């Protein structure tokens, strides 16, 4: 059995707006291995969510379009498959968990009905079978008294419970790949730990592959095996989580790590990366990060960065290491 379950190559998703072309995702490569958790990390607006939506073909056209690239799932290029084919892969092979559990649930159906819908649709279960499956799924994600919860409407559940229900829904057809788009951003800290626990457990018991999108390095260190750092639609650095957190090379990664509060040093102010993500309509030439980079060289504003192998799987896209 092949180790790579999802192979993304040179993915380019552009949005064609009246004011110009936004290269939201511009040449992203990564491999998701079987039963690993790959974290996609970056600031807001760096193209993490667009990458995830592109994989499932959920980009609204117009204005967006996937202009180039390949997404292989078990040797099938999803970007060249028909709409119908992709539709059957969604939910059944690759499922997605959205950030805001409140709005990702249909407000007028009970939790049980919503989860059962997917099961009946993809697996062809009858009502009784579907109900049993819903109960076992809710139990799996740690919802107490699942039988009662199936009869609840979304507004009757707390944020954490809703997020669990969403996870249960996405698990309903035993997908091999689960894409989680900032599932812990909209819940509070205690719930966040519980939700991460759920993912951790799923990864172990189901041997599932997780593509975990987040902007929090704390979450990454908790759950991730490998991580990909994105900046302005391009790759910045990729490595295993331990390697990257201990030995960051790209100035952007270094900046991200420095932004974390450090309890041992007792500084007054948190550090931050100066500036903001560039406007992608008229993006700077060369490396997109150079206007904010304190180590920028002359070449950085002229040429895009090369990929440099630091060691083994650790790859950085930066001129600083090209010699």
């Amino acid at each position: 059995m092949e180790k790579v379950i999802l192979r993304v190559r040179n993915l380019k998703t552009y949005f064609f707006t009246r004011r110009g072309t936004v290269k939201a995702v511009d040449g992203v490569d990564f491999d998701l291995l079987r039963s690993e958790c790959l974290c996609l990390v970056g600031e807001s607006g760096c193209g993490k969510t667009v990458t995830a939506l592109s994989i499932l073909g959920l980009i609204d056209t117009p204005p967006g379009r996937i202009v180039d690239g390949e997404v292989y799932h078990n040797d099938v290029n999803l970007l060249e498959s028909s709409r119908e084919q992709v539709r059957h892969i969604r939910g059944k092979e690759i499922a997605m968990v959205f950030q805001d559990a409140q709005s990702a649930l249909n407000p007028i159906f009970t939790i049980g009905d919503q989860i059962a819908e997917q099961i009946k649709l993809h697996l062809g279960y009858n009502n009784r079978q579907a109900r049993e499956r819903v109960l076992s799924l809710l139990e799996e994600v740690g919802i107490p008294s699942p039988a009662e919860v199936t009869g609840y409407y979304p507004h009757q559940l707390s944020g954490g419970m809703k997020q669990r229900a969403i996870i249960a829904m996405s698990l309903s057809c035993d997908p091999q790949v689960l894409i989680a788009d900032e599932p812990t951003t909209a819940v509070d800290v205690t719930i966040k730990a519980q939700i991460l626990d759920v993912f951790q457990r799923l990864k172990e018991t189901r041997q599932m592959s997780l593509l975990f999108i987040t902007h929090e390095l704390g979450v990454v260190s908790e759950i991730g095996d490998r991580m990909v750092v994105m900046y302005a639609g391009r790759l910045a650095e990729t490595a295993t989580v331990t390697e990257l957190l201990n030995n960051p090379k790209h100035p952007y990664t270094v900046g991200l790590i420095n932004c974390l509060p450090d309890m041992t040093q007792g500084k007054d102010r948190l550090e931050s990366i100066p500036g903001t993500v560039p406007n992608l309509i008229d993006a700077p030439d060369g490396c997109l990060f150079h206007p904010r980079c304190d180590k920028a060289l002359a070449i950085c504003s002229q040429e895009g960065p090369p990929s440099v192998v630091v060691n083994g799987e650790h790859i950085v896209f930066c001129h600083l290491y090209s010699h």
Partner: protein
Amino acid sequence: MTNRLKSIARIARKVGGIRKLILILLAAFLSVTLLLDILVVEKIFDPLVYLYTVLGTLVVLYGIYPLYTGRRLVSYYWERVRKNKLAVAGLAFILFLILLALIGPFFTADPTTVNFEEKNMPPLGFTIEESVYRPETQQIITKTITGTEKHPLGTDNKGRDLLAMIVSGARISLQVGLLATGIAVALGTLIGVTSAYLGGQIDNILMRFTDIMMTFPFFLLLVLIVFVFGPNLAFIVLVIGLTGWTGTARLVRSEALSLRTREFIMASKALGASDSRIILAHLIPNVISLIIVIATLSIPGVILAEAGLSFIGLGDPSVTSWGMVLRAGQQNLDTAWWVAVAPGIMLFLTVLAFNFMGDGLRDAFDPRSAV
């Protein structure tokens, strides 16, 4: 028996649900009878029967059944509606009207029976004096006529029983109101939601088509249809229904536009739902409260339109509708005022009842209004 039920369930699952199976069977049945109707000269069904069957099935599958499965939501909204006394009064009057239309005809006389012996009788409890010319004595004598229990609402100038005519009119008005509104709202919802969900060029085409339909002189079309095909109630219902969907389409579209961008639509797409499934199973149920309000508030307009048509003499002459009685009555207002007043009051109360109920429902469904 259980085996048979199981095999039905299996077939239903293959075509995608019991509802779809019922719809397919209905479509097959109707197309067979329709073909027979066209090929064999003898009519099997009146056109109205088709409308009833189709709309009745749709109402049961997409109205009554969801109401039953969503009993808790329904009881929640009922609690809110109940606080609005006018809405409850309106609902009570509508239920009374439905009852009147359903079982009234079994207790009243035939509204078309003419009896000149008993013409122009006043309602029960009223007495009028009528001057009658007696040819044999060549005298004008004054006769006193008192209302009797046989004709509680009196009779018109041909001796037809007014109560029977009102009951018959209730039936016609409700038929026209419910059927035409049903067609209009179903069409408008489908067009509005599809337009909003698919967007782009399709949205553009559908909405420009709506614009054209809005400018279309519907009354002229009605007159034309009546002129070409003769005044048949089914055609009148169809024309009102097929031209009256534009407002619904616009309102539903604007509501669905904001729903479309909600994350749960994206989520169900990400879990493999098809476009038609998202439209039918996620978008339409979310606009259903809007649809109910639109439907309730547009029924009186349709009833008035039919009454207006009958009033100017373009209604179906084979049925007794309120508009027609009104027309007959206004010619004899000086001798028999009750003939025009009775259908007038009924129209007034019906329109008022639907409007009150529509307002009440709108307030109940609106989460911003504190009832």
